[in-house]
């Protein structure tokens, strides 16, 4: 296969927008703004200004105050900083953390690190569609609860949690709320100030920006213990030389993102995909039909072994299980939480569209997937029931 595979894995990462590449490149070479934003000379000041402009753009997309935005190396670091930083800054001897079973590994593994430190952790279950309710959060909160962390859009199944309701619940109990918005920012509206979220993780590379740059939104009055020591950058919350080109890239990315325009366009492509694939016998949607981010479609193809499915579709770049751990043979923890068997989880595909996906791509993908499913099902004709349940 010499042609480039069709890319339907935009929830794993995205191609960087040409305008973003141009903005980044301007900050690299000798003629550009390559200087250290911490330097006191004119070049440093210019770089600092670019960083502040980017901060404003990032803040604007999520309706936040610019001085609440702390740049990090990505949402993984933001999640770690939000969670560990909250617990390190909390004086209570007994501490409790509330999150869900379907969070990204960077939240779940951090929860595990807290458990080792004797923090009590509550992992909320989701329902069969992947939804967690404000009521569940309310029930979980205790006097020892330091932080609730709930993702906005799930990276595997695209389900959208009702952050507004959950934020109201947390506020009513005076508990801090962190939201992982790595997958949502740019695709659906995010209104951090309106909702009253305390902490929110953002990343550039899921929205046609560069990898390796993200941000943590920290609401006014929220104290965090820094996790990286050594320098006064980012109000002392995150040390390290500011990577101007990365920050400027993220700023441009968030400036270009228009949820009210991009969301419906992505949803159209996703719906077209689902209509086409719906013709396949026995196909199931993983997640929620109504409450789903516009770019993610997760389907289960019962009776098709996962690894063969992926190889058969080698000319379409898709994801099985989480993108961030897709070399991992374990079935996805998210699909398991929905109640899928290991076999069904393995027979699932995450297809995710992006800015550069065209309707013709969708037509082609539907045809290819249909053909390969038919072929592999014929090969497995007569297989026992466990292969498809």
């Amino acid at each position, binding site marked *: 296969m010499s042609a480039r595979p069709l890319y339907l894995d935009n929830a794993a990462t995205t191609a960087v927008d040409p305008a973003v590449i141009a903005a980044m490149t301007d900050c690299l070479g000798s003629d550009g703004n390559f200087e250290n934003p911490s330097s006191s000379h004119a070049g440093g000041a210019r770089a600092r200004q670019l960083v502040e402009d980017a901060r404003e753009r990032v803040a604007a997309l999520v309706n936040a105050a610019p001085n609440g935005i702390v740049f990090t190396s990505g949402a993984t670091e933001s999640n770690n900083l939000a969670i560990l930083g909250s617990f390190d800054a909390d004086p209570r001897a007994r501490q409790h953390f509330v999150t869900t079973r379907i969070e990204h590994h960077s939240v779940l593994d951090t929860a595990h690190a807290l458990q080792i430190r004797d923090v009590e952790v509550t992992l909320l279950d989701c329902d069969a569609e992947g939804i967690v309710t404000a009521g569940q959060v309310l029930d979980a909160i205790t006097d020892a609860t330091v932080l609730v962390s709930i993702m906005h859009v799930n990276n595997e199944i695209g389900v959208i949690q009702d952050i507004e309701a959950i934020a109201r619940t947390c506020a009513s109990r005076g508990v801090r709320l962190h939201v992982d918005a790595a997958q949502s920012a740019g695709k659906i509206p995010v209104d951090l100030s309106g909702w009253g979220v305390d902490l929110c993780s953002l990343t550039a590379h899921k929205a046609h920006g560069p990898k390796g740059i993200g941000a943590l939104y920290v609401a006014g009055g929220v104290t965090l213990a820094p996790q990286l020591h050594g320098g006064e950058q980012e109000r002392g919350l995150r040390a390290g030389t500011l990577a101007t080109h990365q920050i400027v890239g993220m700023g441009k990315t968030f400036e270009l993102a228009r949820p009210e325009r991009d969301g419906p366009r992505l949803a159209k492509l996703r719906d077209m995909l689902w209509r086409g694939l719906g013709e396949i016998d026995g196909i199931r949607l993983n997640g929620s039909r109504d409450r789903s981010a516009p770019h993610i479609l997760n389907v289960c193809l019962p*009776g098709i*072994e*996962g*690894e*063969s499915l992926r*190889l*058969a579709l080698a000319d379409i770049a898709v994801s099985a299980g989480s993108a961030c751990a897709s070399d991992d043979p374990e079935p996805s923890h998210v699909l398991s939480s929905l109640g899928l068997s290991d*076999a069904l989880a*393995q027979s699932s595909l995450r297809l995710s569209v992006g800015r550069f996906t065209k309707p013709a791509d969708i037509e082609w993908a539907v045809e290819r997937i249909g053909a390969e499913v038919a072929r592999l099902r*014929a*090969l*497995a*004709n*007569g*297989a*026992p029931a*466990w*292969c498809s349940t």
Partner: protein
Amino acid sequence: MNYSPEVLQRFDLPQADGVFPDETEGVVRGEAEDRSLGIWVRFDVRVHEGLIRAVRFHLYGCPHAIAAASLICERLEDQPARSLSAIDLQVVADSIDLPVEKYGKLLKIEDALLECWRSLGDSRATSEPGNSRHPGEAKDS
């Protein structure tokens, strides 16, 4: 996962997958499965005059399993029936660069072939009473 050309070629165009027409005579069937390994396989083998004339398979499993089944089918054709019980698994594994963690799946494929071999014994035993336990071999000898 990296796949060798031997795997890719057989995965894309497996040899001998499918079934024989219903009326085909002298066909024995062997099946094996392991849910935890994620494999199910069924062979239909047509033996005539002690020689394997054709093999067909169905399989639910990973690309290596498909390639292994396909490769074995290719190699069995025109071989004495006793070959069903004498697959050199190491040769198969080496030919397709089978990762060690998938070795168990190969054992399941062997199980299915052994069942064919046993069925062949049973079917001859039924149709030609008094024959040896290893009909293909007996016939050849």
